[in-house]
């Protein structure tokens, strides 16, 4: 049983280089936004550091290199097990303090953790009409299964549901922290 597991891991690993570029037929996109009572600058100070994702409840710890420079990297650990548990490896490809926006891609994630491939995302803080701020989180990605006719857990719907849940959890945490406008 153990040996079989190891063999399968080996096979999966050897597929990785091509898997990273292979993808399904239709790229998905989602945009989630939330409105906050706090000013954009205050919200950006909390979420605008690529090396500090502690504002998101799913992120238990993280490490990274390169600060907020282009090509900076981070690894998000999603459990107490740190590097031995579920993780997401990401790279920064656009960053603007002025526009209060950064864009990043996932370089590596197991489909069991997040059932997506070729994932990229923008996180932006904007002023809200009437005061406060709007946080917008956008994602573009393909489903976890790169070939034709995906199994249910790795299809387009599963990918959309998983990414939406991650964004919603993060945005909900921000509402809890900064309050909703007019509330």
């Amino acid at each position, binding site marked *: 049983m153990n040996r079989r597991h190891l063999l399968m891991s080996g096979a999966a690993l050897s597929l990785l280089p091509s898997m990273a*570029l292979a993808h399904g*037929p*239709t*790229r998905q*996109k989602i945009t989630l936004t939330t409105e906050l009572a706090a000013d954009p600058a205050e919200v950006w100070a909390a979420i605008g550091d690529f090396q500090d994702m502690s504002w998101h409840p799913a992120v238990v710890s993280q490490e990274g290199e390169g600060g907020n420079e282009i090509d900076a990297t981070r690894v998000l650990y999603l459990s107490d097990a740190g590097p031995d548990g579920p993780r997401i490896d990401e790279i920064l*490809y656009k960053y603007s303090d002025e526009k209060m926006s950064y864009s990043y891609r996932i370089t590596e994630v197991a489909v069991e953790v997040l059932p997506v491939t070729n994932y990229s995302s923008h996180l932006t803080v904007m002023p809200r009409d009437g005061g406060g701020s709007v946080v917008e989180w*956008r994602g573009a990605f393909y489903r976890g299964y790169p*070939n034709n006719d995906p199994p249910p857990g790795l299809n387009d719907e599963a990918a959309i549901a998983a990414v939406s849940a991650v964004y919603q959890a993060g945005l909900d945490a921000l509402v809890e922290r900064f309050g909703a406008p007019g509330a």
Partner: protein
Amino acid sequence: MRRAPDLALWLALTLAAGPVAGDIAFVTCQNGDAVSVLDLSTGEEHARWSVSGKPAGVAVGTGGTVYTVSPDSKSVRHFSAAGELLAEVTLDGGPIGVAHDAQRGRLFVSDWYNARLWVLDDETLTLLRTLPAGAAPAGLALSRDGAVLAAAERDADRVALYDAETLTLRHSVPVGTRPFGLGFAPDGRLFVGNVGSNDVTVIDPGAGVALATLPVGERPYGVAFAAGRAFVTNQYENTVSVIALDDLRPVATLEVGDYPEGIAATSDGRIAVANWFDNTLSVIDAVTLDTVALLDTADGPRAFGAFILKGEMP
């Protein structure tokens, strides 16, 4: 009982006969299951067709027929310019790219999953034959003189060049990493965007050799030509790289919308770019390089292929 179809036909004809003097863009909108029909002279969305199965590939014939490829439902459709569905076929595999040979009445469709091209009758979409190709064939293009069919073989890092008359493979040209979209320049050279190596390979299709490799932005997706320049969409960078055709020198990098993908030239020297994330079409003056219009589309415009019908210019 005949009233309804007659009325539908009348409406379709009326729409087709509407005031469309210039070029028309047929933009496949993958997430919205639609084709946005945009009049590029007025900027109006002339019509929005409901096209199921997540359409991405598109080829507009010179006679005003429109072909779409929906990879999710594996369907290829043949429409009139007025949006009337003339034929439809389901292809067992991964249909993606499409190119039309009006001279010979053939439609070519790439099979992403099965390393081959389908050759269809361009009226009925009846399967005529298949051609072997390298791994994951994607973008297809026919040379301007109709002599050469080119296929980007994404996972083989090559471009296949077929004799469009005999359908025999003439050359297999190694290019950069993961070639996806391609296009023939007015001078006959073939430009291929390599999404893995962030460059463009320039090919002499007659000799079957690569002439140059040009660095562009991140994830080059499509290429089009106007005003003596090549324009390349950089999907991950929200930009278009502009290259001079005479000496292959970089001219400029233009900001466009998020996830620029399909790109094509109009008959009056403008460049249209589908911005997938923004649901817009950027129209760029190829000489001044200014964005002269930003048009709304349905959700998720891909426009992967020759998506502009060249109208009669006054």
